[in-house]
């Protein structure tokens, strides 16, 4: 187990270097220059352009820039400064990450509670009316784009009924983040529900289930321990990678509800060719993915003792 974890952690290093380098090169090859972009239609004076580029180290070859940047991250935990504002990228990340983490967390909890719950209900009553209702509802959610769902929720609950504020204020309290959390989590919720339903319906027919019932075990134990534990493996796999996706994919939801999180920052950084900010953001997202997939893999052993790690 310990060796497995160590090996996995070591594997993260090349993945980390590879992804950051890729992002760096991708931003670099995009047409458009972040410094020139500051001047817009008014045109730029070449001497100032050159001076600014020099100060930012943008006149260096790309690999030298990458090396300098990674050196800063690895040895000083310094993600560099934003080109336009001159703010340290760590500050930018520090502003944006907590909000998105909160939002993703809310979405994640909703997704687990509602998704697994609905999936269980449907799975246990496979083929019955409840099952069909859940299937239809989840199909609806899956087929609707996020901004449609968001727009619908907003226009019904904020504008027609007036129950909620349409947008998240600057404080971004938990209560305010609840609505965008539902919207963000809705798509994955539908997937989780369907995944849970299918595996449960399948496992219900498994031999060990028949045995458990024949042994005369109480129903709670049959469903809770025997059925759930076995059915959750694919769901946990999905949930693990989904947290990363929730954080990175919040662009639309955040824009819709005026949440100042990672989504908007990523978008801004691409538009403004802010390579350093982008790499910083993606680095952390990559780390989230890597850690989550490690946790998922370790959870397998908990759920199914037959799985062992050498």
């Amino acid at each position, binding site marked *: 187990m310990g060796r497995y974890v160590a090996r996995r952690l070591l594997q993260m290093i090349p993945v980390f270097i590879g992804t950051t380098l890729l992002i760096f090169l991708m931003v670099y090859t*995009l*047409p*458009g*220059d*972040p410094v*020139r*972009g*500051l*001047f*817009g*239609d*008014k*045109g*730029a*004076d*070449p*001497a*100032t352009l*050159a*001076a*600014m580029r*020099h*100060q930012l180290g943008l006149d260096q070859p790309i690999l030298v820039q990458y090396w300098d940047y990674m050196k800063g991250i690895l040895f000083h935990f310094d993600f560099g400064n934003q080109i*336009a*504002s*001159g*703010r340290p990228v760590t*500050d*930018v990340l520090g*502003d*944006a990450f907590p909000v998105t983490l909160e939002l993703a967390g809310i979405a994640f909890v909703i997704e687990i509670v509602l998704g697994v719950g609905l999936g269980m209900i449907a799975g246990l009553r496979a083929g019955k009316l409840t099952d069909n209702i859940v299937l239809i509802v989840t199909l609806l959610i899956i087929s609707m784009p996020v901004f449609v769902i968001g727009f619908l929720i*907003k226009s019904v609950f*904020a*504008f027609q009924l007036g129950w909620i*504020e*349409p*947008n998240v*204020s*600057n404080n971004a309290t938990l209560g305010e983040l609840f609505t965008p959390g539902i919207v963000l989590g809705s798509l994955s919720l539908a997937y989780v529900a369907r995944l849970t339903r299918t595996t449960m319906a399948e496992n219900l027919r498994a031999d060990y289930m028949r045995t458990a019932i024949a042994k005369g075990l109480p129903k709670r134990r049959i469903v809770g321990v025997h059925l759930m534990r076995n059915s959750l493996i694919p769901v946990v796999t999905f949930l693990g990678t989904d947290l990363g996706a929730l954080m990175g994919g919040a662009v639309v939801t*955040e*824009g*819709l*509800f*005026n*949440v*100042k999180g990672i989504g*908007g*920052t990523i978008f801004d950084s691409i*538009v*403004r*060719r802010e390579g350093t900010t982008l790499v910083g953001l993606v680095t952390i997202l990559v780390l989230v993915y890597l850690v989550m997939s490690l946790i998922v893999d370790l959870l397998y052993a908990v759920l199914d003792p037959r799985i062992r790690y050498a």
Partner: protein
Amino acid sequence: MRGAKSAKWVAGAAIIALAATACGGNDDDSAKSGGSAKGAVDPNGIFSIEVGEPQNPLQPANTMESNGSIVTDAIFSQLVDYDPTGKLEMVNAESVDTTDSKLWTVKLKAGWKFHDGTPVTAESYVKAWNWAANITNAQTNASWFSDIKGYADVHPDGDGAKPKADAMSGLKVVDDTTFTIELNSALPYFSYKLGYTVFSPLPESFYADPKAAGEKPVGNGAYKFVSWDHKKQIKVVRNDDYKGPDKAKNGGVIFKNYTTLETAYEDLKSGNVDVLRQLAPKDLPVYKADLGDRAVDQAYSAIQTLGVAFYSPTFKGVDPKVIQGLSMAIDRNTITKTVLQGTREPATGWVAKGVLGYQDNVAGDVTTYNPTKAKALIKEGGGVPGNKVFIQFNADGGHKEWVEAVCNSIKQATGVECVGDSKTDFQADLNARDAKEVKSFYRSGWVLDYPVNANFISDLFKTGAAGNQGGFSNPALDKEIKAADSAASLDESVKAYQQIEKELVNYMPTIPLWYYKVNAGYSEKVQNVQYAQDGDPILTGVEVKK
């Protein structure tokens, strides 16, 4: 307030061709009256306004885009400002005098203080300008000082060149409240330039740590900086010691950051933000019905044009008649009414409205839709090579719809094939312009920097001017611009530029399309919300109701 609005245009000037729904509500221009119901006013009331996160630190010489300049302009006052008709008025200056338009003497009003309590002196100006012009400080707006004698010493041209001096020789402090500016050559409208943010004074504390000062600016303006919660809001409060003519009628301003214009409009309707600068295309058909007399629909001094790439295969050595013809093939009236939903007004010249020297209908026939004449002119001029033109635009700015409409108009009127050449975003668009890769036309625009017609001519059409990205060059015109710049008085200079604008028809350096309008609104909490020539609300005039 008078900044390059490129960033705003990218983010905001998105106009999508929705079906032209009839707008309900009343259409009269409420901006002038500032709303009908005048309530009791709370002089200390604080209101909020939608503003994006400034791109740059809040240093006056480094702030070019609109999100930053509206804040720096609240915190810093300059020597002069303009009234809505474009007339110069003194702010921090007692007087700005010259006899030969070359040597200017500035006298400051006594008793002005920075927000940290230190006095505003002649030195505060001279030192700030020298710092901003110095190449080692790499300020985006440095080129504004290029008129001043000795600029080349502090801001040499070559790549990586070091400054030869610390200060411009043209700036001299006479005493605490007087300094002189000597220019390289006469410039009758130089005093108008002095209203631009870049000419702000800086307190002594700035130089200790310019970067920190950009995060927490100390100015001399009508508002004092309080806090900047990045990506969320910036707060300023009224400066009670302010001596300028534009003392704030409110207690302060909160510049709120929104992710999209749509969310800002929703918050306006639910009372969470008070003033907007712009609306999203989605809300344009309904905003007048929603807001009633709080809806703003007002012209401001900006123009959109089709830039002509004179180096391109299409237009290299072109007869201006061809461009005239193409211009006449554009049905501006219909496009502004339908595709642009009345948010623009057909342009009839190169200088925008509200600017000193604006002339109505100066381009004459050339901006009127006339397919027969258009075809004839193009034929006379030798036709368009390949019988095909391209219009380059940035796909992230919402320009696609009108570009297509313009193209259709050209195609139908003249039979010349016209295709939109879409670049992924503004950065890529600029890249192609700088690399001289534009195939024929490119989308271009200009918001005033100072309300004199020279700003729309000299800064755009002079050979080698920074705003002249199409490579237009005409020695005869350059000569006339030079003559207009060295005219004996402002009036004569403006007149000379008016004459030049009349002649532009013969050269067609760009095709004028339409003037911009402010389409915005404000909440029930505020009144007397007016918008200046640059399209930004006049913050100091806003009154918060009790």
